[in-house]
């Protein structure tokens, strides 16, 4: 694959969707402002112009209504990508997502497939407060029946989106606003990355070791991967070799890669922009206990958002969110105490 071309994550996602619509006319997009506006985080930019209102459909502000409609279309053989503008809004449509999208395949004894992608925006760090800054992937990963996909790079975003569209089961696809490469919201230095032009898939349940190391394993997803990589550079200057694992999907979870890494480094830090308790960090810690207990040389350490709503105030928000300096500090505690 030619990887010299660079794209933002937003363009990588819309390209993936466009190529899948061209490949399979059962594929279409619906959601609030996904059409003429191109999606408020540009995940569907340019699709309306290309495919028109039949396949790129704007909906009213009525999540239960249009997500329920997407479910029905999926059960009838279409392959919808439906956007929930902010994951924080799941409260108004959770019955459709959880009691129907996630369960119908079980309730029907496997006779009804739900090939639906629920695409949604996650993440904070830009002062949008407690109803627009959450990640919540732990919540969806906790509920059986949904695959949970969280890209951290434009390359992964395209491959994982194509895999999500081609999957016969419901997938929640959670991109981070700050990683999309939007001019009005840039939370990382370089928001572009190499993306091949042709369609490709990335299998679910396959974590990506974004950086190899020997002294400590840092496990994260999404924005946390960037912060961990930045921290790893800083740690290298202190003579600490950190391995950074990007899980890419929480369901299915690549427990094997986690265990293998721990067997190599003996120490684990889990970094999560989601809440601390009952979440991803706890699940990883349990996985390490179950699969690599005999290799641990220190207790598993967790760095996640404390159990409070994301504050609006910038200093308070920065206080609760993970960051590279916090990761550096946590790793040093892990290694030296």
């Amino acid at each position: 694959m030619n990887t010299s071309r660079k794209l933002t994550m937003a363009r990588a996602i819309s390209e993936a969707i466009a190529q899948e619509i061209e490949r399979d006319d059962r594929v279409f997009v619906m959601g609030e402002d996904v059409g003429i506006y191109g999606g408020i985080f540009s995940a569907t930019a340019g699709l309306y112009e290309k495919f028109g209102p039949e396949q790129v459909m704007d909906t009213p502000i009525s999540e239960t209504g249009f997500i329920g409609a997407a479910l029905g279309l999926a059960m009838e053989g279409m392959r919808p990508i439906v956007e929930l503008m902010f994951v924080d809004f799941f409260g108004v449509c959770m019955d459709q997502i959880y009691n129907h999208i996630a369960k119908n395949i079980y309730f029907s004894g496997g006779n009804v497939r739900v090939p639906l992608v629920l695409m949604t925006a996650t993440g904070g760090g830009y002062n949008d407060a407690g109803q627009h800054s959450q990640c919540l992937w732990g919540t969806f990963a906790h509920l059986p029946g949904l695959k949970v996909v969280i890209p951290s790079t434009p390359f992964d975003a395209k491959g994982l989106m194509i895999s999500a569209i081609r999957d016969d089961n419901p997938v929640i696809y959670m991109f981070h606003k700050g990683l999309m490469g939007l001019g009005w919201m840039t939370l990382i230095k370089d928001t572009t990355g190499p993306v091949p032009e042709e369609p490709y898939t990335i299998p679910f349940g396959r974590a990506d070791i974004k950086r190899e190391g020997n002294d400590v394993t840092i496990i994260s997803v999404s924005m946390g991967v960037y912060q961990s990589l930045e921290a790893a550079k800083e740690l290298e200057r202190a003579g600490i070799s950190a391995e950074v694992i990007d899980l890419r999907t929480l369901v299915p979870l690549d427990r094997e890669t986690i265990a293998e890494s721990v067997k190599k480094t003996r120490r684990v830090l889990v970094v999560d922009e989601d809440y601390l308790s009952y979440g991803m960090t706890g699940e990883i810690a349990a996985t390490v206990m179950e699969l690599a207990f005999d290799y641990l040389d220190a207790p598993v350490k967790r760095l996640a958002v404390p159990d409070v709503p994301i504050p609006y105030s910038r200093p308070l928000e920065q206080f609760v969110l993970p960051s590279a300096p916090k990761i550096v500090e946590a790793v040093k505690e892990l290694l030296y105490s």
Partner: protein
Amino acid sequence: MDVAQDSSSEGFVVNWFKEEGDTVRSGQLLLEVQFDKVSIEIDAPTDGVLVKILVPQGEVVRPGQPLCMIEEEKKAGELVSTGGASHASQSTGGPTGSQGEKAEAATQGRGRTELRSTPAARRLARELGIPLEEVRGSGPGGRITEADVRTHAANATSSKVATDVRRERLSPAQRATGQRMLESLRTAAQYTLGRQVNVTALVKLREELKRSGSPVTLSDLYHRAVIMALLEHPRLQSRLEGDEVFIPSGVNLGFAVARGEDLLVPVIRDAHKLSLEELAAARRRLTGAALEGRVEREELTGGTFTVTNLGPYGVDFFTPVINPPEPAILGVGRIVRQLVLDEDVRVAPFITLSLTVDHRVVNGAPASVFLTRVAELLAAPEDLISNG
């Protein structure tokens, strides 16, 4: 409390001045700890009751390790630990950290039967057949880590010995010296040159000085000769860093002192500025301090060259080990009477000099030139007292 130590350094508790159950006042002398041959007094950081001594007299301590628990009135126990190193700031840093330490310190106190170790340490110990009881833990609260087991395994090759062999723990001082010497031999390309010197004139000079009431000894004359030769050949005291050498213009002269079985190397600072008498006074003062354990930590560091004299122990020639980061060390042997064959046959006193040099810094020929210069100064010692 502010004891700056390398995280690798190790000390032991010399004395507790309070017993468990005693009331202590903030600032009161609590215990004495010895690190690298230097004693440090630690005061109580707070008022309260000394409820638990975690490191009894004679036991090893590392920087950051909790030493005891002091219960403040109506408050939870506070841990006293050796400060300074990164370990300390970690273990007593955040509120959660110190809470955890308290809990584990308390459990340890109850029975000492609870052995803390990481799963990785236990797995390795199992694989190697090492009883964990024999392993000393370096983690928080003495937790045994995988590295501790590995170190133990590497050191324990002779643990399964015959029953008539007595086992003894090395003193912290011996361990420190050993580590240093091993590091020296691992990192420097050391070779030793030997050379005999006829010291007839030197012995005579020393006797004259003695008669005139001077406290100058042969050691001081050796030191003086080395200092003068170093000023002419300063490369022999240069410090190697990467691809560069740093060559000091003055001389800080270290000299080996044996205290029992321990080895100390006090350093005479700016030795090149001292007269022979001042040199003798400095040597006397530092030797006394070293033997009485009063020598300051700063007085044991910063040397540019070391002299070690095993003459009094009956040694002629030996291969001294360089005291890093110095590039060379001069060993002095005993005075031996030998036959001299020139015009006629005479008997004269000789010593043998053993100069060990780091080949990375100085090659054999220039090192020999330096050694020859030292020998010349000792053989014809007028210059040693000339500008003294």
